[in-house]
C-alpha cells in the first residue's frame, strides 16, 4: 500500500483555557474522498485549519500532520516551509464565497497569483492564460471575460467556482473544502459538488470535505468521519455509516437529519438527551387566556388542488379556497426601481413578484419554497405588512393590506406574528428574555404579563428562570424558542416563519420543528413557512408552493408535489435534494 496523502496523528488543539480537539487521528489515501461531518462546535473546521497551518494565533496544535511527499510534521514546520506547501501540495476552499476573494482584484489575477507565487507557470502571462482555462474547467460561461471580472460582479455560486479553480490551479495532492456549498442555493450546490468530485477525480487528488450536511458527504465522498465534541466518534464507508451507524451520536445525527422518519404522531426523532418538549397548560395562565381569546373556527383539513403554471398560460389562483380564506392574494406584483446605467437614463424596474394569486385556508400549513432571489422573502414581508404591494390585493384575516396606516394595522399585528431566520440577530442583545417575550403585549397589567410570559416560555420548553437572562446566554436553538414564544404571546391566528430553522444544527432543527408542529396544532395556527429547504417544508407543511423568479410555478398538497412534480423547475429542485433513504440506497450500491 502506498503512503497516505494525508496522515493526521493525535492532533490536539488548545486555547489558553481549554482543549478543543482531543487527539484525533486519521489517514486519507491518495485519490480518496473523505467527508468529515459534525455539528457546529464539534471541531471539524479546527481540524482542517490545523492541517493548513492557518489556526488563529491564540490556538496551539500538537500531534503530527504529515503530507505525502513532504518530510516534515506540518504542525512544527516553519512558516517558510508551510508557504511552499500551502496552495501547491494542498489547497483549501472556504465556506464564504462572498468574502473569500479580494474585492479590489480581478478574479483572473487572483487565480494567476497562486501559480506565480509557487512558480508553477513560467510567466505571469502564462499563468493568466491558465487561469482562463481553469475557469472553463469549473464551467464558468465565457471564461476569458470572467477572468477580467471583479468579485462583486459574480454570484455566490460563480465565486465559489473561482475559488475552486484557484485551489486546483497547481494540481494539489490534497484538497480541503470547508462547508463549500453551505451558502449556496440547492441547485447550485448540486452543480458545485459535482464539480468538486469531478476535478478531484481527474487529477487524482485526495479530498477532505467538511460539512454539517450528511447529504453532501453522501454525494461526493467514499468514506466518512463523524466528529463530536472534539473527537472522531465513528468512521467508515459512507454507505455503511448511513445505513448502519454504530455510535449513538451518529445514530442521533442521522435520525435527526432524516425528515421522512417520523413517529406515530408525525414527530421527528430527536437526540435522546433532550427532554421531549411538553406543553403543559400550567395551572392558571393559559387556560384563562384561552378563555378571552375567541377560538378560531377551524375548517376540516382541506386538500389543495395540484396545479402548475403553464408558460404563456393564463394566471392561476393557486390553492383557491371557497368561503373565507385566512390569506387571500390576488394579482400581487412588487417592483423595485434601480438607478439606470446612464446619468439621465430611466430607472430600471426590477420585478420582485409578478402577478401572484393564491389563498391560504384557515388552519392550513403552507410552505413556500424557492431559491435566493426568487421573491419568497419579499412575499413574506408583504404578508406581514412590512412592505407594500406595487399592485394587486392582499387580504389577511379579512384585513386588506397596502395603503393601510399603522393604526389600522394594530389588530392585524396582534393576529399575525413572525419568526425570523437569524436567531442571533433578531433578538435585541440588551433586552432581557422576559422583556423580549412581553414586548408585543399592549394594554396588559404587569401581573398578567408575568403570568403569560411564564406560560409562554413553558410552552416552548424553556424554564421560568431564563426570564432574567439576555439572548447571548442561549444557544441558537434556545434563541429560536424565545423568538417563537415572542411570536405566540399575542395569541396570533397566523404565524409566518422565514427560514426559521435554517441556521440550526440538524438535531436542534428536529427539536424546533417538533415544537413548531406541536404549537401549530395546539394554537390552531395558520402557518406560512418560507424556506429554501425542501425537506423541512415536506415535513412540516401540508401544502407547498414553489416560487421561482417572482412567480408561483407549482402548488399543491406536499406529498403530490414531491412525488409527482409537474413543473420542470420543481423537478430540478427536488432532484437536487435527495432524501435520506435515497442517499442510503445510492451510496450502498
Amino acid at each position, binding site marked *: 500500500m502506498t503512503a497516505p496523502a494525508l496522515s493526521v496523528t493525535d492532533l490536539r488543539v488548545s486555547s489558553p483555557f481549554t482543549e478543543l480537539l482531543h487527539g484525533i487521528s486519521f489517514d486519507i489515501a491518495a485519490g480518496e474522498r473523505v467527508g468529515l461531518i459534525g455539528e457546529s462546535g464539534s471541531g471539524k473546521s479546527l481540524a482542517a485549519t490545523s492541517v*493548513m497551518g*492557518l489556526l488563529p*494565533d491564540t490556538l496551539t496544535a500538537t500531534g503530527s500532520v504529515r503530507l505525502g511527499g513532504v518530510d516534515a510534521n506540518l504542525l512544527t514546520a516553519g*512558516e*517558510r516551509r508551510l*508557504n*511552499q*506547501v*500551502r*496552495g*501547491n501540495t494542498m*489547497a*483549501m476552499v*472556504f465556506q*464564504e464565497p462572498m*468574502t*473569500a*476573494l*479580494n*474585492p*479590489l*482584484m480581478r478574479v483572473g489575477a487572483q487565480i494567476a*497569483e*497562486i501559480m506565480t*507565487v*509557487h512558480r508553477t507557470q513560467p510567466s505571469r502571462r502564462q499563468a493568466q492564460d491558465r487561469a482562463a482555462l481553469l475557469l472553463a474547467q469549473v464551467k464558468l460561461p465565457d471564461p476569458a471575460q470572467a477572468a477580467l471580472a*471583479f468579485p*462583486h*460582479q459574480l454570484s455566490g455560486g460563480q465565486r465559489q467556482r473561482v*475559488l475552486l479553480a*484557484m485551489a486546483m490551479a497547481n494540481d494539489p495532492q490534497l484538497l480541503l473544502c470547508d462547508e463549500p456549498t453551505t451558502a449556496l442555493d440547492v441547485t447550485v450546490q448540486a452543480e458545485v459538488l459535482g464539480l468538486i468530485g469531478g476535478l478531484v477525480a481527474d487529477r487524482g487528488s485526495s479530498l477532505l470535505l467538511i460539512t454539517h450536511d450528511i447529504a453532501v458527504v453522501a454525494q461526493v465522498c467514499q468514506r466518512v468521519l463523524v466528529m463530536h465534541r472534539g473527537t472522531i466518534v465513528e468512521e467508515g464507508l459512507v454507505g455503511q455509516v448511513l445505513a448502519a451507524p454504530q455510535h449513538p451520536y451518529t445514530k442521533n445525527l442521522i435520525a435527526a437529519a432524516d425528515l421522512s422518519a417520523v413517529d406515530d404522531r408525525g414527530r421527528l426523532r430527536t437526540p435522546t438527551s433532550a427532554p421531549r418538549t411538553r406543553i403543559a397548560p400550567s395551572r392558571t395562565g393559559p387556560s384563562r387566556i384561552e378563555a378571552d381569546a375567541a377560538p378560531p373556527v377551524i375548517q376540516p383539513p382541506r386538500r389543495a388542488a395540484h396545479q402548475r403554471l403553464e408558460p404563456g398560460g393564463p394566471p392561476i389562483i393557486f390553492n383557491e379556497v371557497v368561503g373565507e380564506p385566512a390569506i387571500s392574494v390576488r394579482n400581487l406584483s412588487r417592483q423595485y426601481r*434601480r*438607478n*439606470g*446605467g*446612464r*446619468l439621465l437614463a430611466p430607472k*430600471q424596474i426590477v420585478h420582485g413578484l409578478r402577478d401572484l394569486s393564491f389563498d391560504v385556508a384557515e388552519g392550513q400549513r403552507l410552505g413556500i419554497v424557492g431559491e435566493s432571489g426568487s421573491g419568497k422573502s419579499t412575499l413574506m414581508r408583504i404578508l406581514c405588512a412590512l412592505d407594500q404591494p406595487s399592485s394587486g390585493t392582499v387580504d389577511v384575516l379579512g384585513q386588506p393590506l397596502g395603503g393601510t396606516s399603522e393604526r389600522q394595522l394594530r389588530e392585524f399585528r396582534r393576529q399575525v406574528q413572525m419568526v425570523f431566520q437569524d436567531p442571533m440577530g433578531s433578538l435585541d442583545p440588551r433586552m432581557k428574555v422576559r422583556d423580549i417575550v412581553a414586548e408585543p403585549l399592549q394594554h396588559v397589567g404587569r401581573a398578567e404579563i408575568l403570568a403569560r410570559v411564564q406560560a409562554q416560555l413553558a410552552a416552548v420548553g424553556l424554564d421560568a428562570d431564563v426570564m432574567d437572562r439576555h439572548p447571548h446566554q442561549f444557544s441558537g436553538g434556545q434563541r429560536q424558542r424565545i423568538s417563537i414564544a415572542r411570536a405566540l404571546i399575542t395569541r396570533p391566528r397566523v404565524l409566518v416563519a422565514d427560514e426559521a430553522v435554517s441556521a440550526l444544527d440538524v438535531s436542534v432543527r428536529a427539536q424546533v420543528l417538533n415544537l413548531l408542529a406541536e404549537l401549530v396544532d395546539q394554537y390552531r395556527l395558520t402557518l406560512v413557512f418560507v424556506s429554501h429547504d425542501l425537506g423541512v417544508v415536506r415535513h412540516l407543511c401540508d401544502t407547498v408552493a414553489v416560487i421561482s423568479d417572482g412567480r408561483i410555478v407549482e402548488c399543491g398538497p406536499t406529498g403530490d408535489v414531491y412525488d409527482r412534480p409537474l413543473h420542470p423547475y420543481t423537478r430540478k429542485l427536488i432532484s437536487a435534494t435527495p432524501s435520506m433513504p435515497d442517499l442510503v440506497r445510492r451510496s450502498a450500491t
Partner: protein
Amino acid sequence: MVLVILRRIGIFATTGIVASIVTFLLLAILPGNAARIALGVQATEADVAAQATAIGLDRPAVVRYLDWIGHVLVGDFGTSAVSRQPIGPDIADALGITVILVLASVVLALLFAIPFGILTAIRQRGPDGAIFSSISQIGVAVPGFLAGLLLVTVFAVTLRWLPAGGWVDPADDFSGFIEHLILPAIALGSVQGAVLSRYVRSAVLDVMRDDFMRTARAKGLGTARALFRHGLRNAAVPVMTVLGLQIATLLIGAVVIERVFSIPGLGSLLLDKVALRDLPAVQGIVLVLVVFVLVLNFLVDLAFTVIDPRLRSES
C-alpha cells in the same frame, strides 16, 4: 467610469454653489455695514448712505450676490473696503502658501501614519506595539500650536538649526524655502499623522481578519506578502474616508499654525482682514477656503473610484 466622474463633478459644482450662497448670506446678515466701516465712526448718516450707493450696497441681496459671484468666477474678488486695493492678488499669493503648507503636512502625516499604523497593527500583541500605540496616543492629545511652540523652542531657539518663522518664496531661495517649511509642516502634520495612524492601525487589523486574507495565506503567501499584495489596498479605503474628513480640520489648524510661525498664508490673511473688519476680503477668503476643502474632498472621492472597482460600476 466616466459617468461616475461626471456625477462627482456635478455634486462638486452643486456643493460649491450652495457654499458660496451660504458664505454670502452669513456675511450679509452680520452686524456692521461695509459703507460705515470704510468711512470710519465720524461719518454722518448722509455720507454713509452715499457711500452705500457708491459701492452698490443699496441693491437687493440677489443682485449683489450674482454680481459678486460673477466677478469671483473670473478671478475678481473686488476691492478691499479698507485699502481700496484689489483683493484677488492677495488671496492668490496667500493661497499658494497655504496649499504648499497643507500638502506638505498631509504628505508628512501619511509618511508617518502608514508605516507606524501598519507596525502597531502587526505588533499588536507585542510590548513594542504597546509602546508605539502610546506614542501615537500622545500625538493625538497634543494640540498643533503647542507642538509648534515646542518645535520652535527646541530646533529654532535652542539648537538654532531652523528658522523660527517667516516664509521664503521657493523661486527666490529654494533651500531657504525648505528650511522655513519644515517646522510648520511638522507642527501641522504631526497631530493629523497621529490620528491617521490610529485609523491605519484599526483598518489593517480589520483587514487582517478578513476572509480573503485567509485565502491569500492558503495560497501560500506569507503574512507580510499577503498584507502587501492584498491587505493594504483594502485597508486604504476606510483610511481615505478619514483623510477626507480630516482635511477641514487641517485647514483650521493651518490658520493657527500660520500665526505661530508668522507665515503669510490664507489663515494669516483671514485673521488680519477680520481684525480690520474688511468684509469683502473676508468673504472672498472664506469662499476660497471652502472651495479648497471641496476640491480636496473631490480628489479623495476620485481616488476612491480608482481604488475600489465596486464604486466604478455604473448601475
